[in-house]
C-alpha cells in the first residue's frame, strides 16, 4: 500500500470521527478509536467521496480495523484506475 493512500484514509477517518489525526494509525482497531457501526458508515461515505469509488456492502462487513480498510480502498481504487485505463 502506498503511504499516500494510507495518509488519505487516516485523514478521512480523523476528519469524519472528529479526532486528532495523530490518534489514527494503520494499526488502529475501530474499537480502540471508538468507531461504532454508524461512525463506520459515515467513514465509508467519506471514503467514497475522497477516492471517487463505490464500496459495496459485502466488502465492508468484516472490516474492523484501519489496515483492512486501507487494503479495501486500495483494491477498489486500483480496479477503478484499471477500468479507466482500459477505457482509454
Amino acid at each position: 500500500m502506498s503511504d499516500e493512500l494510507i495518509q488519505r484514509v487516516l485523514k478521512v477517518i480523523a476528519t469524519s470521527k472528529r479526532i486528532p489525526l495523530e490518534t489514527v494509525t494503520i494499526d488502529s482497531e475501530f474499537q480502540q478509536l471508538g468507531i461504532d457501526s454508524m461512525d463506520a458508515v459515515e467513514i465509508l461515505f467519506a471514503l467514497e467521496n475522497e477516492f471517487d469509488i463505490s464500496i459495496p456492502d459485502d466488502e465492508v462487513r468484516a472490516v474492523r480495523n484501519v489496515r483492512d480498510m486501507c487494503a479495501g480502498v486500495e483494491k477498489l481504487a486500483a480496479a477503478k484506475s484499471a477500468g479507466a485505463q482500459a477505457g482509454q
Partner: protein
Amino acid sequence: MRRVAITGAGAICAIGRNTAEFAESLRQGRSGIGPVESTDMSQVRFQNGAEVRGYSHQPYFDDRRADFMDRFAQFAVIAAREAVADASVEWTPELRETAAIVTGSCVGGQSTEDIGFQEVYKLGHNRVHPLTIPKTMANAGASHISMEFGITGPSFTISTACSSAGHAIGQAFWMVRSGMTDLAITGGSEAPFSFGILKAWEAMRVVSPDTCRPFSKDRRGMILGEGAAMLVIEPLEAARARGARIHAEIVGFGMSADACHITQPSSEGAARAMRAALRDAGLAPEEIGYINAHGTATPANDPAETAAIRAVFGAHAERLAISSTKSMHGHALGAAAALECLAAALALRDGILPPTANYNERDPDCDLDVIPNQSREARMEYALSNSFAFGGLNAVLALRAT
C-alpha cells in the same frame, strides 16, 4: 379503568389489500418481497422491497381527491375505511365529535417532497407544486381520515420512526381505557419508495441485497415495506353491548427510551419497554404465549431483541413462540407496528401464529423459537407486539385473545 376491544381492522400492504388477504398470507407464510417496481432502481444498490404491487388510487379515490393525497395518506384512508366498515360503527353526532384519531408515520409524504424538490434543485424550475406541503405533512393521514368520516374529536400523529404506530396505538388505547374517548381509529401508514429516501437508506448500509431473514444466521439486513393498518378500538363493555365482533383486546402499553445511541439498539431499553407493557397490563411474564418481534433482520437488532426477551422472560423465553412478520410485509417504518399489532391480534383470534419467513439457519445469538417458515396452530391467551425505533424509542403493546 375500562377494558379496550379491537372491533375493526383494516390493512393494505405487500401481502394483502385487506385484512382477510393479509391474514391468509400470514397463515401461508407468503412473503411480499420482490423487485421494486414503483421507483427506478437502476442507481440504487439494493433492488428489493415489499410494495403494494400495481397500486392505483382509482378503485379508492376519484382523481381530484387523490390529487390532494400522497400515497401514504391514501393507504391510511383505505385501511381506516375497512376498519370502520368492519366495526360497523354506528355514527351519531356525539360520537363524531368525541371519537379520536391517532396515527403513526415516519417519513410522511416525503415522496411528494422528493418530487417537488427535484423541480427546483435538479430541473432548475422556479416553482414547486402548491400541494407539496399539505401532501408531505406526516399528519395528512389522520387529517384525511377525519375528513372521510367527519370526525371532529382529538386527532393527531406520532412520529417515532419505526415505533410510530406502536406509540400511536398505545396512546389511543390509553385514551379509550381512561374514558377520554369512546372510540378511536388508530394505526399507521407509510409509503417510502422514493428515489431520495431509498438512496438515504442505501447509505446506512442496513438494507438487504436479497430478502429479509429475521433471526436467521445468514440475515443480511432489512427490507423496506409500505402500506397501512388501522384499528377501531372502543370499550369492551360497549362493544359487547352492541354485539360487535371483537378481534382481540388491547390490555397494556409500555414505552421506553434507550438514551444510548441514535441507531444502535439497546437490549436494556427494549427490555424496559416490554416490562412496562406487562406492568401496564398487570401480567406476569409467564402469561405471554406469543411475541410479534420487531425482528428487522439487521445484524444488530435481532441479537439485541433476543437478549432483551431473555432478560424479561428468563426460563419462560424457551416456551415463547416468536416471529417477525417483517419477513413477509417488509419493514413499513411508521406503519410497521400497526401491521404487526394487527398480525398479533389475528394470531390470537384465529389460533394461527404467523411464521418468520425466509428463515434458513439457526443463529446461536438468536436462539429462540422463531416459528421458522411455517405458521403454527396454537391458541394463546396473551401476546406482545414489539417495536424498537431508530433513536432508541421503544413501544410495546400487550394483547389478549377474546
